């Protein structure tokens, strides 16, 4: 995680230091990898109404909104499928071994998220029996947005949560924030430069978080239409959007749909811009991306 405040005020550093504590608290509430997290407590109580914190409430609402906006392609209800694909512990542990599958693929359940019930007056949540949630990237995007919003009281802010980046607005001099694009074809390399005035940038890809199971490559982005890792010609998809949560959702949609349908989907939405790196090494970009590039000559995208 990286956070930056465009301010030389002496209190800026101490304000930034407070971000770490906030992220730690959010992780304790929202991580599926912490057995005693609030999210796991909710998952264990599927079938019963469960009171939740403001944090879990807001992130769950954001996840359900993303599910609706993506017609179900980005949904929090895929934890069982993710575990069946082998992502049943932290990524470091998953990557360490090529293990035989011990769980069965679950049957796709389109629109399963619509069975989740929320009681706003009581701040309680009801999950159907057997449903378990993974808030994944939505939680990360939500946390980064919260952090940037909190920092922005002291100046223009940028927060980078694992490559998903939000900026609160233009820098103090009115200029855009320079943001590089990692090249999924060359670990450690960049191949382009974005200039972002506001909103978020997110990237979804299978260039790093992948592993072998039963001698087959798996990755962490599940296609809810099959409940298996998405079969796609896209190596990575980066999307710029008015909010980081939108960018996060859209990057996954484009990745799952593949380069052709994904680009059509993004072109149909005037507030989004996207950049796709395909497995054949080609690069595809949406029309609006040029507004966010440092310069046409500089970027080879």
């Amino acid at each position, binding site marked *: *995680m*990286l*956070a*930056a*405040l465009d*301010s*030389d*005020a002496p209190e*800026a*550093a*101490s*304000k*930034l*230091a407070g*971000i*770490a504590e906030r*992220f*730690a608290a959010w*992780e304790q509430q*929202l*991580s599926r990898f912490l057995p005693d997290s609030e999210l796991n407590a909710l998952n264990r109580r599927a079938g019963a109404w469960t009171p939740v914190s403001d944090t879990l409430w807001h992130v769950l609402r954001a996840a359900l909104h993303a599910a609706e906006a993506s017609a179900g392609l980005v949904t929090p209800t895929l934890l069982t499928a993710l575990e069946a694909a082998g992502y049943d512990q*932290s990524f*470091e542990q998953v990557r360490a071994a090529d293990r035989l599958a011990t769980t069965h693929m679950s049957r796709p359940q389109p629109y399963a998220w619509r069975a989740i019930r929320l009681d706003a007056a009581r701040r309680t949540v009801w999950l159907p029996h057997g449903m378990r949630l993974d*808030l994944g990237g939505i*939680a*990360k995007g939500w*946390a980064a947005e919260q952090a940037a919003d909190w920092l922005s009281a002291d100046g223009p802010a*940028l927060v*980078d*949560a*694992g*490559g*998903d*980046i939000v900026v609160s607005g233009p820098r103090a001099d009115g200029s855009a*924030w*320079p*943001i*590089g*694009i*990692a090249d*999924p074809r060359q*670990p*450690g390399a*960049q191949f382009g*430069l974005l200039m972002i005035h506001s909103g978020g*940038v*997110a*990237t979804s*890809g*299978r260039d*790093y*978080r992948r592993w072998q199971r039963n001698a087959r490559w798996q990755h*962490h982005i599940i296609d809810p239409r099959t409940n298996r890792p998405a079969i796609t010609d896209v190596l*990575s998809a*980066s999307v710029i959007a008015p909010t980081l949560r939108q960018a996060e959702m859209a990057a996954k949609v484009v990745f799952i749909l593949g380069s052709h349908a994904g680009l059509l989907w993004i072109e149909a939405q005037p507030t989004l811009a996207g950049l796709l790196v395909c497995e054949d090494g080609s690069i595809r970009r949406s029309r609006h991306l040029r507004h966010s590039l*440092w*310069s046409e*000559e*500089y970027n*080879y995208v």
Partner: protein
Amino acid sequence: MAPHAPKKAKTGNTLITKILITAVSLAATVGGWALLANDPTATAAASHPPAAIVPSAPPAAQPGIGSAQPRLRRVAPAPLAITRSSR
């Protein structure tokens, strides 16, 4: 490859492997920026000088056009952050 292409970023020792992370490793002021990071790569990138305008060498003369005049070109700023898939 285009001129002035971005430098290769060093591999970051990022701790972001789950949903969220606990991040406390650096809180400092770097080149006028207040930064908090647990990613050395990102911090190093942020300490680069900002964008500048510098004169460039004149482009080679082209037949029929004559010698081109020196012109200014922009130097790309170092990225403050890098978008990438989850690590």
